[in-house]
C-alpha cells in the first residue's frame, strides 16, 4: 500500500515525534508541577516562557534554536566539544525542535491536573509519613497519570505535524529529518507532485486523528476519575 519511500517518511516522523516526547515529558512534568504551585516566585514570567512557542512564528523558534544549538551557537558548540553531539540538521535536532514546539501542549494538560489535585490529600499523606518526594511520586503523579497520558498523545500527534521549526533547524534531509509535513512540502515543490502530496497528507491525517481520538478518550477517563 505504501511505497518504501513513504514508509521511511512515516518512520522518520514517528521516530522524531517519539524522541521529542521522551525528551520533553519529564521536563514538562517538572515545569507543570512548578507552575501549579501558587507560591512559585516569578510564576507568570516562567509561564510566559513556556508558552512562547505557541505565539512565536515557528520559523523564528527554529532560527533561535539554530543560534543557540547550531555548531557555532554557545550550547551547540559546547555539546559538540564535550559530548560530540551535533543537533543542527540531524534527526536529534528535528526531535529537539519538535519537543520545544509541543512542550506547551504537554505542560498545559499536565498542569491542570496538578492544580485540580486536592491539597488536603497531600496533608493526609504527610501525616501518614510521606515526605515531599514520596508525595509527588505516590500521589500527585499517579493522580495526574490520565492527564499526562492524554497530554503525551496530543503532543505526539502535534509533533507529527511540526514544520517550521524543524525545517529551519534540522533542514529537509530524506531519511534523516524529512518528516511527513516536510515531505509534503517537498512533493509540492516538485512539478506534478500533487498526487504524492495528497497521499502523504492522507497519511498525516490518519496518524493525527488516531492520536487525537486516543487523547480525547483518555481525557474523558481522567475527568471521570477526578469527578468521583
Amino acid at each position, binding site marked *: 500500500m505504501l511505497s518504501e519511500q513513504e514508509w521511511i517518511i512515516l518512520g522518520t516522523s514517528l521516530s522524531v515525534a517519539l524522541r521529542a516526547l521522551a525528551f520533553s515529558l519529564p521536563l514538562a512534568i517538572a515545569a507543570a508541577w512548578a507552575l501549579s504551585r501558587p507560591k512559585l516566585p516569578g510564576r507568570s514570567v516562567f509561564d510566559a516562557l513556556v508558552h512562547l512557542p505557541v505565539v512565536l512564528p515557528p520559523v523564528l523558534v527554529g532560527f533561535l534554536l539554530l543560534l543557540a544549538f547550531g555548531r557555532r551557537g554557545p550550547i551547540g558548540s559546547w555539546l559538540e566539544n564535550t559530548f560530540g553531539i551535533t543537533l543542527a540538521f540531524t534527526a536529534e535536532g528535528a526531535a529537539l525542535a519538535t519537543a520545544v514546539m509541543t512542550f506547551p501542549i504537554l505542560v498545559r494538560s499536565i498542569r491542570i491536573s496538578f492544580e485540580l489535585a486536592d491539597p*488536603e490529600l497531600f*496533608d493526609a499523606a504527610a*501525616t501518614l*509519613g*510521606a*515526605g515531599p518526594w514520596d508525595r509527588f511520586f505516590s500521589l500527585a503523579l499517579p*493522580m495526574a497519570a490520565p492527564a499526562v497520558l492524554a497530554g503525551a498523545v496530543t503532543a505526539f500527534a502535534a509533533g507529527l505535524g511540526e514544520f517550521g521549526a524543524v525545517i529551519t533547524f534540522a533542514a529537509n534531509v530524506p531519511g534523516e529529518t524529512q518528516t511527513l509535513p516536510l515531505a509534503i512540502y517537498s512533493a509540492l515543490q516538485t512539478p506534478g507532485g500533487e498526487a504524492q502530496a495528497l497521499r502523504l497528507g492522507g497519511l498525516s491525517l490518519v496518524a493525527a486523528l488516531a492520536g487525537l481520538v486516543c487523547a480525547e478518550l483518555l481525557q474523558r477517563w481522567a475527568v471521570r476519575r477526578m469527578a468521583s
Partner: protein
Amino acid sequence: MLRAENLCVRRGAFELRASFEADEQGVTGVFGPSGSGKSVLLRTLAGLHPAVEGRLALGDETLDAPGSRVHTPPHRRGVGIVFQDARLFPHLSVRGNLAYGAKRAPRPAVWTLEETARRIGVDALLDRPVRALSGGEKSRVALARAILSAPRVLLLDEPFAALDGRARRGFVTLLLELNRDARMPMMVVTHQVEDAAELSDRLLAVKSGAVIASGPAAQVMNAPDFRPLLDVRDFGARLPAASVARGADTAARGVWVRADAVLIAIEEPRGLSAQNVWNGRIRGIEREAAGSFLVSVDAPPGPLQARITSSARDALSLEAGQEIWAVVKSHAI
C-alpha cells in the same frame, strides 16, 4: 504525651492559643462550639499549621518551638490524624489506602493490615475502590489507615461528623476499644457533649481560639466555666459511666446527664420504673432566661443538674440546702 506551652498559631485573622497536657495513654477530648479552633488546634499538632509562638512537645521531643526555629514536618512527627472528610486516596483501593499508611510506618503497627481491617470492620471492603464507599465506611477506612501508620498519638477531627445516631454510637465504642487494645493515645475533637463525656479521660475545652480549660474530664465538664460552651438544651453534668444502670458501653469513661433528663422529688419515690434514684441535696437554683429553673444537686455519683418549670419549683417550694431525690431514666441519657 503531648504538651503545649503557650502555643500560638495564626490562620489569617484567626488566632489560637493553647496550653495543655494530653492524656498519656487514654483519650483526650477536644470540645467546643463550631469555629472555636478545634480543627486548627489538631492541624497544628499534626504539623500542618506552623506555630508562631510557644512550644509543643511529644514525650521528650520538641515538635514545635518557633522561638528556636524548631518545626518537625508532619511526615516526621509520628502524629496521625483522621480528618472529618476521611481524605482517602481516589486512585487506590481500600487495601491500597491501608497499605499506604502501613508502608510508611516508622515501626510495626500493633496489628497487621488484615487484623486492623477486621477490628475496624472494613475487612469486607478491602478490594473496593474508595469512591464506592458510604460516609461511615470512609471514616472507618481512614481510621484503619491512620492506625496502620503506627503513630505515637492519633488525632481524630470530628470522626462522627458524617455519621447518624446509631453509626455514631458504634464509632464511639470502636474508638474506646481501639484505645484500650492498641494502647494508642488519642485526641478526639467533637462538638457533641455526649461523645465528649463518653470518650474523654481528659478534656480540653476550646472557645473563641483559646483552650479555656484542660484537665480530667469530670473536673472540666462539671466546672461552671464549661457551661458557656453548651447549647441551653445540652446543659447537664458528667457522671462516671459505672454509676448509671445501662450496661451498654462498659468501656465508656462517663455519661452526660442532661438537665432535661433529671426529675426532682421531695420524698423518696416508690414504684418507679427508673432505676437511678439518688438521695442528694440542692446546692443552688438559678432562674433561666426562658423562665425555667436549673437546679444543681450534689448526689452520691456526682453533681447533677435538673431543669424544672417555675410552677414545679413553686409547687415543691425548692430551696438551696434542701434534701431531695434525683431520678434519672437510663434511656433518656
